[in-house]
């Protein structure tokens, strides 16, 4: 079956590439159109006169810093909040996943089922009560105010992915190393860590994607650029005329926040696919 690649497969290959990449090409093209061009309306795909102006405005290379100030603050918040939420979730989930994969204990199934149930949980349900609670706890519009509720989806995802990875690790090798004369610490560091690291890393990437993508909590629990993340900031970025949003600048912001995603995908595509599928389908 694999030996013959018909014209169908090749056509399919091209269709997939176009379907997946056309919208990306579109926002890239749009980001090089001038603000005037999109305001008056430009139905063609490629810009009439490609320009770097939007990038200069958003990244702060012009005299007017108001737009770039907000955008860069949002980028900082997004990176900070996503990375902290990812690290916390992955560390806590690693302990849990190790226990689930390797130890026999009561309530193992409950932990996995609960993680799955919480992963399906409608996050928007938390928005009202959290909005109320966070104002009393002074967590409204702060980094921890977002990082804590982000645990509702980062933790289950990390637990689910990691326990799938850990079940594949040949744990007997640790004992084998000890039989061969390694101390427990050496066995752990030289045998288990190298075996487990790829799984932990993959779980971290997937968790980061989710945190980086989060929108509902980000628009509900923040009010200023001191904690607003990129998706939230972009949705509030309407420009002076609400009936005519600054298309090309929004497209530029879209391109900039997509660059980290593309880099991660290019470097780790094989791992991401393994992580996505191992968590869901096995056996």
């Amino acid at each position: 079956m694999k030996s013959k690649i018909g014209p169908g497969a090749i056509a399919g290959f091209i269709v997939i590439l176009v379907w997946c990449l056309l919208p990306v090409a579109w926002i890239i093209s749009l980001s090089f159109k001038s603000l005037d061009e999109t305001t008056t309306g430009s139905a063609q795909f490629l810009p009439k006169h490609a320009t770097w102006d939007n990038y200069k405005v958003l990244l702060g290379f012009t005299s007017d810093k108001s737009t770039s100030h907000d955008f860069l603050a949002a980028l900082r918040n997004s990176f900070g909040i996503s990375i902290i939420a990812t690290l916390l979730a992955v560390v806590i989930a690693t302990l849990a996943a190790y226990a689930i994969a390797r130890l026999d204990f009561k309530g193992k199934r409950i932990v996995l089922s609960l993680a799955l149930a919480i992963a399906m949980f409608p996050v928007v349900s938390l928005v009202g009560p959290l909005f109320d609670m966070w104002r009393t706890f002074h967590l409204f519009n702060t980094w921890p105010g977002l990082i804590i509720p982000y645990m509702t989806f980062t933790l289950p995802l990390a637990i689910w992915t990691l326990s799938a990875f850990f079940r594949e690790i040949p744990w007997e090798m640790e004992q084998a190393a000890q039989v061969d004369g390694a101390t427990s610490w050496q066995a752990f560091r030289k045998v288990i860590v190298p075996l487990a690291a790829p799984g932990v890393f993959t779980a971290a990437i997937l968790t980061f994607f989710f945190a980086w993508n989060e929108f509902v909590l980000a628009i509900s629990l923040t009010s200023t650029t001191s904690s607003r993340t990129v998706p939230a900031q972009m949705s509030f970025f309407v420009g002076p005329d609400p009936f005519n949003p600054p298309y090309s600048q929004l497209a530029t912001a879209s391109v900039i926040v997509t660059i980290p995603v593309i880099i991660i995908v290019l470097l780790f595509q094989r791992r991401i696919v393994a992580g996505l599928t191992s968590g869901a389908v096995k056996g």
Partner: protein
Amino acid sequence: VSTTTAPTASKQAGSRNKVVATDRAIAENRLGQRLVAPALILMVLVTAYPMLQALYLSLFRYRLTTPDDKGFIGLKNYGVILTDSLFWKDTLNTVIIMVATVAVELVIGFAFAMVMHRIIFARGLIRTAILIPYGIITVVSAFAWQFTFSINNGWVNAWFTWVPGISSTTNWYGDHWHAMFAIMVSEIWKTTPFMALLLLAGLSQVSEDMLEAAKVDGATAAQRLFKVILPNMRAAIMVAVLFRALDAFRIFDNIYVMTRGAQNTESSSFLTYRQSIEQFQLGMGSALSVLLFLTVLLLAWLIVKFFRVDLAQARGEG
């Protein structure tokens, strides 16, 4: 080299296990529970606690603009919601979006999986291409598609004038079904890769020998697809449908960016958000949160019962 030593080591561990079984088992049990405790406590704390708070608030007349007016009103909020046509309209919208997007994604996702399964060149390229929509921020996808369908900047109106019903002046955000279509396209584009990858994993577990045997027996391509491939992928398909259906039911980002609920495109999540955050109706919003939670629970239960998916078993955990 090390794999040859592994079985003996595990055998030794096994025999040691038997000698001190009870002590070891108790210690293992305790260690296991201690290791999962932080995750378990944190998960319950961040979801169950606010959810209970929502349950409590839902019994009150509570609006942040008039906090002194807070008062216990029992199940009145639920009564108001369940008799309001807006709630049912939004629920219907959500169900339409869920059913339509999951159905279309299943078909496109399966086609993608078939292609990816057969292609032996440029696998890295195709994997990268398919992961970009997966990794992209939903808000960015919503903007990209909003601009795509834009009346004076988009390429849909420029390129597809030959399709009946589309002209250079079609206003995609001017009426309900056009707007719903645009929202669903964005949702489908963003989440098809996930579906395709899950289906691809299922597809690679269908044995080649079985397909070969079916071919030798004279099965047509369609017969091989419906009698061999699909039945053997049942578990993978069910898991993909469950994950995606529940995810699609929570649709919010696309609607918020593309229409803000205009043209009656509001979803259940959007209604809950609007009541709680934009209207400061915390009592009513909390009641909607509880109802949304119950709906998702019911939906998950229905899918699991109807398709008999046991996720833990599907993973060999049971």
